[in-house]
């Protein structure tokens, strides 16, 4: 067993992968927690697909560089988010349908351009990630995004908590509520781009949503959820990367997300706020009627 880990750690690309995913876990943990709490889990998934055409066009125009990935993906992500918000505000369509329509167009456009351009990179690594693709520039991107994310959360945490918990109250208390919303959307796009190399465009959001959702089954404060989400994300990355090393033909993205999925299912089963909660309450009657009623969709 010890030799196995020594062998694995001898490869520079594995060392890079472990460092990169550790930084990524730190960065995506707060973003994932608020994606879940702001009920934007599916919107996050949609945004992961929405950045595809930007990355592809950047790749076709300027090659597979971090700069092209960052600029193309950022423009596509913010463009789709803004257009979806405009459609939701100015037309009869709701926000979810607007975003779903636009991300589908964006994803199809991205795959179409990638295929038509006769891409030099395999489609599989584009969609699902590759631990071999983490070069110096990618590490720099990860470090920069993580730094920007942590500083932004230090500034935005209180407004984010208030705006997520009680959005109408938040709007009543500030003259520029859109700063928090748009700021969070920019952080989401940046983190999706940072996760792209390791997890691929289809799996990038998995490391945000699954650990954060799993953490929610265990804890009842936002700081604890962010910290536990980080622990789950880090565990998923390290175990997933090891699986990917063991089975060389498997891409790293699905391996990592599968581990995160396992943690999520286990948490839903045994976490104190998961399925077992109601059984425990039935066995030990308490003075907390709301827990039962909320779980059944009835506010007491």
């Amino acid at each position: 067993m010890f030799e196995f880990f020594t062998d694995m750690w001898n490869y520079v690309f594995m060392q890079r992968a472990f460092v990169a995913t550790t930084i990524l876990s730190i960065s995506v943990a707060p973003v994932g927690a608020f994606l879940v709490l702001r009920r934007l889990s599916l919107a996050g998934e949609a945004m992961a697909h929405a950045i595809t055409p930007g990355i592809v066009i950047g790749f076709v125009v300027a090659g597979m560089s971090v700069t092209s990935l960052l600029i193309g993906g950022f423009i596509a992500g913010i463009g789709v988010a803004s257009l979806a918000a405009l459609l939701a505000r100015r037309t009869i369509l709701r926000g979810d349908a607007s975003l779903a329509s636009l991300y589908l167009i964006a994803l199809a456009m991205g795959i179409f351009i990638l295929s038509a351009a006769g891409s030099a990179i395999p489609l599989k690594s584009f969609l699902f990630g590759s631990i071999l693709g983490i070069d110096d520039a990618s590490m720099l991107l990860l470090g920069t995004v993580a730094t920007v994310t942590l500083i932004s959360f230090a500034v935005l945490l209180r407004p984010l908590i208030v705006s997520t918990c009680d959005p109408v109250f938040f709007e009543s208390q500030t003259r520029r509520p859109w700063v928090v919303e748009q700021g969070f959307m920019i952080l989401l796009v940046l983190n999706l781009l940072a996760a792209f190399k390791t997890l691929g465009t289809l799996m990038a959001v998995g490391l945000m949503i699954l650990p954060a959702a799993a953490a929610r089954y265990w804890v009842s404060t936002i700081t604890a959820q962010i910290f536990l989400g980080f622990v789950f994300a880090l565990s998923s990355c390290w175990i997933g990367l090891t699986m990917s090393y063991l089975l060389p033909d498997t891409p790293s993205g699905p391996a990592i997300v599968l581990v995160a999925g396992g943690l999520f299912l286990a948490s839903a089963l045994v976490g104190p706020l998961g399925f077992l909660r109601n059984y425990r309450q039935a066995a030990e009657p308490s003075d907390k009627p709301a827990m039962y009623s909320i779980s059944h969709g009835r506010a007491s």
Partner: protein
Amino acid sequence: MTDVLHVRNLSLGYGHLTLFRQLSLNVEAGTTLAVLGANGSGKSTFVKSLLGLIPPLSGKYIWPDGRPDDIGYLAQATEFDRRFPIRVRDLVAMGAWRGFGLWSGLGRTARSQVNAALAETGVLALADRPLHTLSGGQLQRTLFARVMLQDAPIILLDEPFTAVDQNTEAHLTSIIDQWRHENRAVIMVVHDLSTILDHCSHALLLGGGEATHGTVQDVVVPERLVAQGYLSQGQASWMFRDLSSCGVQSHV
């Protein structure tokens, strides 16, 4: 008494739909204004417009002493995420969140203010409980405590007694009375006529495209309530007979 707000020629609505036109009124410190009307008459729209969340179709709000930095606000319970992972005391502390700065934690003064507000509303024992474990009445008491932390000269309450029992409602109305005695202006959307007659000095009746403002005795009368579609003729007859038999009268 000093006016805290002047509303002039206010018309509210959405696009081509006008809810009411040409409302003018003054709100004095130390008064409680009840906003009542049928569903869709513009009660919540009026409150949100006052907060600056919905622009008026025409007209304006004039704040004689300048718009207060903080306006106490309690939204309808449906607009609140009860599953959000925070403790009761953290929700109450939100009432003063702008005073904390970006980095600092709750100071000793703020912590004692939070505890005092929780004690005042009767939920101090629940201070460290997660929000999702509260009943509807406990949550409403907690939100009242948050309004206390705001320490605002004008307080807006949008249906504050929804999903609360009679004891809780009595306690919360006593807090509203106390705010009035502290010379704050309270504007609240409320449906219960006995609460309006007992605890409010002025009323704004919305409905039928009109807005009628005046003292409670002038506005909350069967003829007006029927004319503006708030009550049917039959409801008005038995309700006012019932209220007078219970001895409910306006306090002013």
